C-alpha cells in the first residue's frame, strides 16, 4: 500500500515478467524434447542467436521502418491537428468534412496500399503515406473531441475578462484538448508500426516487413521471429514514449481524479 512509486511500478511488472519467462522456458524445453525442426519452430535460444549473428541486418531494416513510422506519424499529427482545429472552428467545415473523414475509415487499408504502390512506387513515400493514413483518423477525431469538451463556463469567464478569440483558444481550448489529443496520439502510435509494416509487405526493398517476408521465403524462421520481437518492442517502446511525453507535458493530470 505505502510502497514507493518505483516499488509499485516494479510490482506491476513482476507477474507478467514471470509468466513470460515461464512461457519461454516451456517453449525451449518443448522444442528440444519434440525435435521440431528449427525452420518450423526455432527455440528461443536460436532466436537469441539470430539477434547476435544478424544484428547488422536487423538494425538496418529497423532503421528503415522506424523512419517510415516517424515520418508517417508526424505527417498525421500535423494534418490531424490542423483538420481537427478547422472542424472545431467552422460549422460549415464540420458538416462538410467530418462525415467524409468518418466514411473514409470504412475503406480497408488492404485496398488502398496497392494503389499507393502504383502511384508512388517502391520507395519510402507509399509506406509513409500508409502510416499517416492509419494514424490520421484517431488524431483528428480526438482533436475535435478535445476542443469540444472545453468547459463553456471557463470560456465565458475568459470572455468576461475581455479575452480575444485567440486568447480563449490559447488559454482554455488548447490546453483542455491536450489530454484527448494524447489519447488519439497513443492509439495512432500503436497503429503506426502496423501501418508501416503493412506498407512494406505490399511492396518494398527494405524495412522489417520486407525482412520478414524474405526470411519467411528462405525459411530463416529464427530471423523472422527476431524481426517480430523487434516490431513489438518498437510498438511498445513508441507507445511508452508518447505516454511519457504526456506525463511530462501534462503534469496536472496526475492529480485530477474527476472532471468537475
Amino acid at each position, binding site marked *: 500500500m505505502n510502497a514507493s512509486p518505483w516499488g509499485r511500478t516494479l510490482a506491476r511488472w513482476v507477474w507478467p515478467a514471470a509468466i513470460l519467462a515461464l512461457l519461454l522456458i516451456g517453449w525451449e524445453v518443448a522444442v528440444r524434447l519434440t525435435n521440431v525442426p528449427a525452420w518450423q519452430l526455432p527455440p528461443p535460444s536460436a532466436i537469441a542467436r539470430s539477434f547476435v549473428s544478424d544484428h547488422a541486418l536487423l538494425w538496418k531494416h529497423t532503421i528503415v521502418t522506424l523512419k517510415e513510422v516517424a515520418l508517417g506519424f508526424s505527417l498525421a499529427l500535423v494534418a490531424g491537428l490542423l483538420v481537427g482545429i478547422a472542424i472545431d472552428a467552422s460549422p460549415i467545415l464540420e458538416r462538410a468534412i467530418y462525415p467524409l473523414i468518418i466514411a473514409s475509415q470504412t475503406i480497408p487499408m488492404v485496398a488502398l496500399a496497392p494503389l499507393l504502390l502504383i502511384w508512388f512506387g517502391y520507395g519510402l513515400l507509399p509506406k509513409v503515406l500508409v502510416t499517416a493514413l492509419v494514424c490520421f483518423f484517431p488524431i483528428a477525431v480526438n482533436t475535435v473531441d478535445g476542443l469540444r469538451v472545453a*468547459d463553456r*463556463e*471557463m470560456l*465565458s*469567464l*475568459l*470572455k*468576461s*475578462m*475581455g*479575452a480575444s478569440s485567440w*486568447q480563449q483558444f490559447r*488559454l*482554455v481550448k488548447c*490546453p*483542455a484538448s*491536450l489530454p484527448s489529443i494524447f489519447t488519439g496520439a497513443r492509439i495512432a502510435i500503436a497503429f503506426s508500426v502496423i501501418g508501416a509494416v503493412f506498407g512494406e509487405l505490399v511492396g518494398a526493398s527494405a524495412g522489417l516487413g520486407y525482412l520478414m517476408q524474405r526470411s519467411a521465403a528462405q525459411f530463416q524462421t529464427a530471423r523472422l521471429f527476431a524481426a517480430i520481437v523487434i516490431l513489438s518492442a518498437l510498438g511498445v517502446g513508441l507507445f511508452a514514449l508518447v505516454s511519457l511525453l504526456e506525463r511530462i507535458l*501534462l*503534469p*496536472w493530470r496526475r*492529480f*485530477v*481524479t474527476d472532471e468537475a
Partner: protein
Amino acid sequence: MCVVVPPRLHNDRTPRAASSAPPRLTLRHIDSTYTERGHSVQALQDISFDIADGEFVALIGPSGSGKSTLLDIVAGLFAQTGGDVALDGAVVATRERLGAAAYMRQRDLLLPWRTALDNAALALEVHGHDRREARQLALDRFPEFGLAGFERAWPAQLSGGMRQRVAFLRTVLTERPLLLLDEPFGALDALSRVALQSWLLDLWERERQAVLLVTHDVDEAIFLADRVVVLTPRPGRIAHIEAIALPRPRHREIVTSAAFLQHRAALLDALGLLAPATGGTA
C-alpha cells in the same frame, strides 16, 4: 459608444465617492426575454438600480428570478432585450462591457492545467501584462489571501475554500472598479462559508470596489451589503430594496444584534417567507 474603464487601484480609504460622481453601475429598466423550446420566457422585468463607487449591493431572490442573468448582462456576456446599462454614467453596449467588470461565479473555474499562481495571474495575462510581471503581482498577494506556500499547487490539490480564494485573488487582481460575484460561497460548507464572508469583508474594507453580489442567503446579504435588492420569482422584478444600517467595520457578532434581526425580518417578508398570504411589495 465605447467606454474604456481604466484599471486602477482602490486603496483610497474614503468610504464613498462624492455624491456628485456618477454611479459605478446604473441599470435602467432592464428587461430580459429569451426563447426556450419555442416559448418566450421573461427572466427580468424593469430592473432599475444604481451602485455607487465603493458600495456593496447584494441581490437576493428565489431561484429562477434571473439573478445570474442580470450579472451576465452587466458583464456583457448576455444582451438585455430592453433598457440600458451604464458604467460611470455612460451607457455601454453589451459587447463593449466585456472586460469592464471583474466577474466571479459560484464554480471557481480554475484552469486545472495552471498552478494556483498561474490561475491567480490569469486575468492579468489576458489584460496584456507579460507572464513574469503578472505572476509577480499575484505572488505578492498570496500571503494576504492565506495561500502562501501553495503557489505551485495544482487546483486539484487544493481544498474548496482555497480554490475559492485563488478565484477571488484572480478576480481582485483585475483591478476593476466593479466586482460581480455570483454566489461565490455557494458551493462551500457552512464553516468555510462564514470564514470566507468575514475574510471578504476585510478585503473589501481595504479595496472598496463597487460590488454586486448574488446570493440566496439572507444573512450573508445583510452581513456584507450596504443595500439588499430583493427580486420576485420569474419574471424577476424588484420587490424591495433594503438599506442596511449596520455600522462598519462589521464583525461576526453583529448577526445577533436587534438591527440585524429587523433587516432579516424585512427581507424574509419581502421574499414572501414570513406571512403565507402577503407577498412583499416595494
